[in-house]
């Protein structure tokens, strides 16, 4: 995947003498745990890949191929984030329930972007209107407070032009007036982000035209207070 078809984001993983190539493995089912994917970038084992993707869920049902693709992107984004900020910082972010929203929601945003892109390419190739209008999980825009604690549309909300609060109503949805950030600009910001205050400050320093500091505060504070 070159930088053009990954929204100019950085290479997710760079092997070196001490770091072997990233191994991504597919299995039909994880018989021990009810999971669809896992990423353990620091695991060095000749037989187990760093990233594992599972075709079946805990109940034994097959996942659809778009979901398998999205899950693969999701897990590789974790590896990329881990490599970008370092193992210690990533562990602090991920293990703290208050900040785990950041790595998980970042992975959600990239999986959404890349899966949609894949379907757009397929739609153009096969002239399929359904593929061209495809929007993975509808951009997580129907998410609301209490439905899912970590996998939120926080970073998708920075990119899209859709305000869930006015569209769906209710205080259980974020007032999303922020738009026009890109995946690559957010990735650059995440390099130094360890908490919500830094995230807000970095977003304000790099805000697109038309976005105010207040809009950023409203959006990020909403997710911070989950």
């Amino acid at each position: 995947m070159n930088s053009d078809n990954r929204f100019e984001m950085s290479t997710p993983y760079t092997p070196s003498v001490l770091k072997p190539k990233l191994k991504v493995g597919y299995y039909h089912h994880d018989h021990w745990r009810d999971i669809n994917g896992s990423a353990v970038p620091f695991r060095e084992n000749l037989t187990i890949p760093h990233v594992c993707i599972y075709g079946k869920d805990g109940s034994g049902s097959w996942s659809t191929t778009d979901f398998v693709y999205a899950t693969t992107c999701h897990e590789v984004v974790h590896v990329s984030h881990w490599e970008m900020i370092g193992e210690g910082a990533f562990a602090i972010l991920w293990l703290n329930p208050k900040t785990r929203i950041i790595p998980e929601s970042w992975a959600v945003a990239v999986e959404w972007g890349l899966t949609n892109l894949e379907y757009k390419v397929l739609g153009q190739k096969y002239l399929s209107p359904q593929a061209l209008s495809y929007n993975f999980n509808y951009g997580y825009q129907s998410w609301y407070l209490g439905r899912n604690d970590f996998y939120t549309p926080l970073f998708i909300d920075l990119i899209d032009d859709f305000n869930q609060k006015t569209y769906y109503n209710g205080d259980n949805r974020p007032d999303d007036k922020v738009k026009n950030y890109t995946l690559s600009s957010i990735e650059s910001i995440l390099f130094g982000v360890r908490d919500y205050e830094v995230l807000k400050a970095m977003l304000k320093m790099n805000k697109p035209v038309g976005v105010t500091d207040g809009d950023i505060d409203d959006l990020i504070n909403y997710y911070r207070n989950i």
Partner: protein
Amino acid sequence: MKPMKTFFKLLISVGLIVIFSHASCDKWVCGDNWFVNKTMHKINVNVYCHGEANNELSFHIAPYDSINRMTCGLGGPVDPFTSNTCGPDSILVVFNDTIPLNTFRYLEYNPMNLKKIGKTKFRYEFTEMHYQKALEVNGYLR
């Protein structure tokens, strides 16, 4: 004391391995979305995407009955009114096949706002309030 020190070191190492071996495990979670009809009227919940009715997401409930719509997603169940090709433009609650209530115009009656009643259990109740509102907006109540 040396065996104790070694034991504690081993314990810490095992703890770290357990923590890190579970790092970034993304779980597919399914949940129950219960829709309860507490009225004496038959209810059709018609979901419209891009101006067209969506059969996959629409459903109906008999009087004083309930139905369960199971949905799954990474980390938690996704919204029962959304799919990869459908983000609803409107959700019509139709009573007895005749009296519609556009819940996107009267958002306080929007069934997308399910209440969380358990870790993966959600519930929404259609009550007499919905019916009265439907009557009102259709001009049956003055």
